[in-house]
């Protein structure tokens, strides 16, 4: 798959100065945007369109520190990244065990309208999971210097990639449980939740 770090002439490192990234995004956009190639031939216009689309996708993948980690993992593994594609790492057993109770409550809530009391409990549980979901994201972003050090030293990346994948898997799992809770609480509006990348 295309290396978006290369599009911006950057090494495959996670710490990126957002101001500098934005500047080079604007610069590349000025060079490739179809607006500035109107007078050119059909082929040159098509090339500008593709180049501009690539720059836009690359910026989207890299501008947000968390999305950047997800993209990095996909890149390392040579997969095509798609919005709902999650890293196929296993969710740790202890987390699954911990969730047993929540899952049970969920099943009950799905089977019949939850009582006020159950609903309050589910909301509380969701709040807790949301905090944890955020904590996982923070941990991922916080690990950026560690990754960059490995790259600088030309060290072995496998271990870190696996750790990142694990955290992403936990996040994906938590997301599912949070969404299920929202649905069980009847607060779901049927919209697809998109995170901003």
């Amino acid at each position, binding site marked *: 798959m295309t290396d978006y770090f290369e599009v911006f002439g950057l090494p495959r490192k996670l710490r990126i100065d957002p101001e500098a990234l934005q500047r080079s995004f604007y610069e590349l956009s000025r060079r490739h945007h179809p607006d500035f190639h109107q007078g050119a031939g059909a082929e040159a216009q098509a090339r500008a369109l593709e180049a501009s689309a690539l720059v836009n996708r690359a910026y*989207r993948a890299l501008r947000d520190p968390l999305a950047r980690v997800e993209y990095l993992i996909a890149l390392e593994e040579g997969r095509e990244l798609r919005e709902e594609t999650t890293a196929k790492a296993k969710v740790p057993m202890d987390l699954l065990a911990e969730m047993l109770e929540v899952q049970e409550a969920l099943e009950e809530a799905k089977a019949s309208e939850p009582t006020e009391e159950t609903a309050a409990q589910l909301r509380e549980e969701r709040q807790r999971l949301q905090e944890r979901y955020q904590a996982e994201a923070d941990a991922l972003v916080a690990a950026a210097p560690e990754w960059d050090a490995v790259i600088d030293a030309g060290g072995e990346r496998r271990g870190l990639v696996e750790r990142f994948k694990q955290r992403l898997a936990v996040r994906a799992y938590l997301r599912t449980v949070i969404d299920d809770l929202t649905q069980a609480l009847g607060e779901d509006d049927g919209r697809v939740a998109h995170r901003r990348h």
Partner: protein
Amino acid sequence: MSRIVGIDLGTTNSLVAYVDGAGVPRVIPDEAGRKLLPSIVAYTPNGVVVGETARRQLARHPRRTIYSVKRFMGRGWDDVRDEARHVPFAIVPSAEVVRIRIEDREVTPPEVSAHVLRALKQQAERHLGEAIERSVITVPAYFNDAQRQATKDAGRIAGLDVLRIVNEPTAASLAYGLQRLAQGVIAVYDLGGGTFDISILRVKDGVFEVLATNGNTHLGGDDFDRALVQWLLADVHAQHGVDLAADQEAVQELRLGAEAAKCRLSSEERAALTIPFEGFTYHRDITRTDLEQLIAPLVDATLGPCRMALADAGLAAAEIDEVVLVGGSTRVPLVRQRVEEIFGKTPHSQLNPDEVVALGAAVQAQILAGGITDMLLLDVTPLSLGIETLGGIVSVLIPRNTTIPTLAKEYFTTSVDGQTAVDMHVLQGERELAKDNRSLARFDLSGIDPMPAGMPRIEVTFLIDANGILQVQSKELRTGKAASIEVKPTYGLSEEQVSQMVEDSFTHAEADVNARLLIETRTEAETVLNHVRRALAQAMDLIRPDERETIDRAIAALQAVEGGTDRDAIRERTIELNQVTERLAEAMMDAALKGAVASRRADEILKEP
């Protein structure tokens, strides 16, 4: 290279603008100096008329005078079922693109819009003294692919090469940006006649980067008018015991009156409405509070999209540096108040909210022409694009608020040995189930070489161009062969249909020009006739019997030709009638009765600022 103009194709009014030699964007006025062309098209027995002339047909010929057609662009019958009940013209139920029936013929919304575009094109050609063939046209930011495509089709039918479809709020930001009137993170709140958009942009170093956009393509000033009309109908019933709801002409009179009253209530606390109906004259004082109670739920409906745009941009309201108001409906004080509440700062509209979108379109046109090189607009796609997968679930390929142009690739294979075709269903929207989203098109990929099931690897590229319009390409990776794609737009026109319409438009062009001239002449004759009749009724004793006879003869002479198609005869006799009534006018002036001649109808009040 020929000039490129910028066009704001509005629900209520349309404008055309260009950037002059000094680099200043300007709206091009018509011959009478008017900048706003009412987006109204009247199909008369003699041909098609557009704009002010068509507006005068609204009350008289409601079934063949089309207004607010933008609300029907790129729509299917299911989307407009509700809308259709509120307009006096006939919307034909159909499985595909919506059609409007006018007597024995049917027209599509792009064809109706093409008449408005052609009028603007001619207006620009007359003013600039050169042929205009290329344009930028604005659309609401929240318009989906089908609505954008329909707008592009309308341009083609009107003989315009549409180089770019630009979002209205972003166009407005370009007009502000050109004059350095907006910097930093800005929110553009655009409430027009029929649509609402909110766009959040970062303006920095000449780059206009849209961070998020949201909106409602079925919410605008029209809905305010409609709420007021319903209220007036109930009031007429209460006051006079008459139900006018089924009387199309009366409803149109009320609609025009409601619109005028609404505009007046933006600057005044109360407005008086007087409409003469058959058998009674309806009078009503409307206060601003009355209006605000009626429209409050509609105004509040714009706040949800504002919140969602902020969330998608990852910003809090406090992080917005400036709030800019666009669209005529932002003149309504309640709208300003609500906007101020949600963003926590006073919004401004330094540039005329009616003109700013057209001016911005002209700026974008100038960028495309190479005349401006230091400004760049980076817009987004307003809706997520996805394909239907097993179980009717949508798989999102390009999420909403992705900077355009953008592309996504998806891979398909076959499920049966020897299968040579694969079909896919492309949708736009934010819902999880395919059936809840807007169907854009079904694609048939064919010409796949027969292979065992699962062997072919077909790469499909979904590309959203800078217009926000989808292009699809595909190729079979094993053979490198481009698979052919047949597109079946769900609510759009096919290539053949558009070509046919372009051809038809040439055939009708001359007839339409003649029709406009004839109807303008007739309207003028009717106006003079009405004035003279009223004057005679009021000032009969001021003139001699022989003068009265001359006037009666001139009236009869004009009446004899008025319904015909001889334009010169109608004009000559109108002039004659004017001449023989000069003495009458003088006498009335002397009698200080002049003011009494002007008993105005609601649609004449509208012409005033």
